[in-house]
């Protein structure tokens, strides 16, 4: 994985990572941890340099508490489109389950690994290129 790669890597040619994450390091995310967010979409931002989902996550242990808002980060629109996403793939009010690598700094944010939509299916698909 990336951590072992970084130890020995001296890559002259360039940015290691997906194109979107060429623009900032992924080291801000804890890639050894995964957090599952079950909540409701507040906003889906189909924007450069990254798409974002604002999601309201209730505390299952305390339904009366106000939900916590998470801001989770994805790739650039062109990357998401290649993976089967569209600008209208998510809408405010959609019930979703999002798996993220959380931010290391403890804020309610993270790197999106997968999103399960209101129909119970994972949104998008792996990119396909000739092997």
């Amino acid at each position, binding site marked *: 994985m990336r951590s072992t790669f*970084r130890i020995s890597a001296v*890559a002259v040619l360039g940015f290691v990572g997906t194109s979107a994450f060429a623009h900032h390091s992924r080291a801000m995310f804890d890639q050894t941890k995964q957090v599952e967010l079950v909540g409701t979409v507040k906003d889906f931002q189909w924007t450069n340099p990254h798409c974002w989902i604002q999601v309201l996550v209730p505390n299952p242990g305390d339904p009366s508490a106000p939900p916590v808002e998470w801001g989770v980060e994805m790739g650039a629109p062109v990357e998401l489109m290649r993976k089967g996403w569209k600008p209208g793939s998510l809408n405010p009010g959609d019930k979703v389950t999002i798996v993220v690598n959380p931010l290391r700094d403890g804020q309610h944010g993270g790197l999106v690994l997968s999103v399960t939509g209101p129909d119970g299916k994972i*949104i998008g698909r792996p990119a396909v290129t000739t092997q």
Partner: protein
Amino acid sequence: MIANLIRRILPRGLLAIAMVLIAGCLFLTRAQTSSKGRVEAFARLPDWSGIWELDAFVGQADGQQFSADGQRRLKYYAAALRPSFTPEYQARYDEIQKKVEAAVAADPAHPPVTHQPLCDPPAFPAILTPGMFQWRVTPEETTFISTVGAVRHIYTDGRSHPPKDELWPTLMGDSIGHWEGDTLVVDTIATKRRLYMSELSGFFVPMSDQLHFIERIRMINPDRMQIDYTVEDPVALTKPIHATIIHARVTDFNRMIEETDCEENERDPIVNGRFTTVVK
């Protein structure tokens, strides 16, 4: 004599029309000859149409994870690229690496910004890795177009590099090329004087004004482009770097869409030289 004959036969107006028609025919014949030559010049060039990406990104799954093969490719590329610096440049490299290490250790949650400004297109040769690419091959120039906001012009019209007093370091440098069969041989100088190192969070090391790249670019099968390249810098390196990268044909997408408009929604602002995140 013929003109006199025509003049006697034809009224002056008709003569003018005839002259225009003759001139037109001569022009068209010449244009056709020239366009035939141009068609032949295009026909000699390889077909590099389509959209391409670094092969390590092939099969990347949702969630930005590399495929197993992609990880293997990245390790292979990294292992092949270990510059042998001269003592002076090794010392500079060590110093930068030490600083980056210290900065990362001081606050691992907020990586230090060690790249160039992050929404500018990456300088050559880093431009050959992120995003998607297209090639435009013409007799006079081969153009490399990237979705991360850069265009490389490789002139193949037989010109030389400009004289030294007309060159300065630019993101893409100055590239001239020639064809050896279906291989485009490219010579690039006047790039930014630095190389990108992907250790830690990634950083640049300075190189000298002698930095010089030679690429040999060819299609090795209908779905793969191979770029063999040599990096020379007699001031900074004790020996040239020789390496290869491969671009794969993209088959699941047919549009080039730029992805560098960071002003649209930048939520990872740099604060005090470190990446931060705005979660709301």
